[in-house]
């Protein structure tokens, strides 16, 4: 009997200690992968932060529209895409839209900030003309400061002349 009691007591003492070690290990493990993650991240195109679960945002809502050099006029395909966005916004009246105007690096920074805003505003105006409440749409220009493609090639420039869309 006494022997058994000792065993139980010993177990009682040892078990929590064991548990403690395990929990410690977990903590260390949980921390370890967190550190290198940001370093690996920039390689992948950063997806827009997941919106609140209630909104199921289709991919065309965040699809970019593109512009010609030093232009803020909407191309025909951009207008078609904006019409789809407008329909979805009408069907989801709680959703708000942020339009980010971007330019390529070939112009100069000051003028490009202004150009980026005109690009964002021309998409906003188009959506408002289609009946979307202007209060639901905000704009920001990043000019040439946030290129999608950092290379210095005509392909990269074409990609970087765009409006980005964030739904929230």
């Amino acid at each position, binding site marked *: 009997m006494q022997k058994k009691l000792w065993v139980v007591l010993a177990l009682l003492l040892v078990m929590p200690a064991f548990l403690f070690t395990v929990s410690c290990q977990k903590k260390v493990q949980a921390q370890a992968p967190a550190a290198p993650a940001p370093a690996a991240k920039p390689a992948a195109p950063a997806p827009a932060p997941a919106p609140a679960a209630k909104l199921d945002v289709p991919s065309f809502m965040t699809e970019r529209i593109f512009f010609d050099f*030093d232009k803020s006029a909407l191309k025909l395909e951009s207008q078609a895409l904006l019409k789809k966005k407008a329909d979805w916004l009408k069907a989801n009246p709680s959703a708000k839209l942020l339009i980010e105007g971007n330019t390529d690096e*070939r*112009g*100069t*920074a*000051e*003028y490009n*900030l*202004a*150009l980026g*805003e*005109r690009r964002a*505003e021309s998409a906003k105006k188009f959506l408002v003309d289609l009946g979307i409440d202007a209060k639901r749409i905000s*704009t*920001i*220009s*990043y000019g040439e*400061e946030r290129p999608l493609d950092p290379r210095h090639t005509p392909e990269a420039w074409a990609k970087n002349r765009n409006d980005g869309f964030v739904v929230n």
Partner: protein
Amino acid sequence: MKFRHLLTCLIACGLLGLSALPCAAQSESYQYIDIRNPFLRKIPLAIPLFKNQAGGPREGDSARKAVDIMASSLDFTGYFKILDRAAFLFDPQKSGVAATDINFQNWTVVGAELLITGLFEQAGDTVSMELRLFDTVRGRQALGKRYSGNTSEIRKMVLRFCSEVIYYLTGNKGIFNSKIAFVSTGSGKKEIYICDFDGYNPTRLTYNESISLFPSWSSDGQHLAYTSYKGGKPDIYIRNLADKKETVISQVGLNITPAWAPERFELAATMSFSGDQEIYLLTGSGKMIKKLTNVKGSDVSPTWSPDGRKIAFVSNRTGGPQIYILDLDSGAERRLTFEGKYNTQPSWSPRGDKIAYSSQVGGLHQICVIDVEGRSPLQLTRENGDSESPSWSPDGSLIVFNSTREGQSRLYVMTAFGTDQRRLMLLNGEQTNPKWSSGVFD
């Protein structure tokens, strides 16, 4: 040939601009610096080692440092050809430094037209320097000054004498008390930095951890305005450099490209809260005074005429970006640039006669200057890569700009005539948006 022709026009304009300079000393020293183009013929200047008065090797190092700062600072102006010390028939330790002790023929024979001698004394941490400028051709002293201070102030004392030299020769106080603000990505983000006129002592000013752009100095050098996204969108921040306090201009939309009015606590800047990008006049604490432009389209990048009565700016009112001038008294606007399809970043010369800007030439941006009447546009940079963002030195003799000619964007300096192009400094990251201050720092 075309370049030659344009240069001749500019020389004529430069003559008009400079001849108005009020200075008694100038007429006397007229022959030294060719005021039509002071960089065309560099004046041969000899700066032998300073005489180390009763000093040991430690003092010798300080004296050496002082003479090197002097040579490189005067060389920086572009006015001089600094002669090689190895050619001098002169032993600074054995020779005197005053006019009566100097055999001027020893200097004219090595080609020197100007000579600077120094007597350097150091006791502990206190340094005193006797510095003299001589006209070797006429065989007489032009300037003589004595400075003393802590060893840590050697650069300051030497630069003060350099200012005297430049004032004597040109009638203008020069650049030695000026600083340059710029944007650098050294920390991984675009932050504002400040360095001396020659790139010395670059120091980080902002820790916004965001995108910060377009620094602009108030003419008293006490405030710096810039654009930053630190509040989530492009807003203007006005920083008091003494107490580091900031005022923010944060209207809906863009708040960008601030430009301080000369000698006033006011600035012009582009804002888009009205739905259109227009230039407004604001107080130095961010209060609205009035709207300056009123044409649909982008109006950005204001730059003030030195008398504060006009601004030049960029507008796309006729399609692509071109430079316009607005007369603030009459409200009259006129287009300045007609050559090229993309002319931006105007910077009005402190002498008032020219505007520097960047122009797209064959797909690349190059620095150009044009006279304020719109005549004689002249391309100053021709290197491969983009050269952008020109800003004049406070005396109008030099232009700082950024260029990708060596790959990464770095800061470069050239004379107002495009000669003597050189890199200002080597720093981590990329440097852009340089802005030269007035010559107010000491």
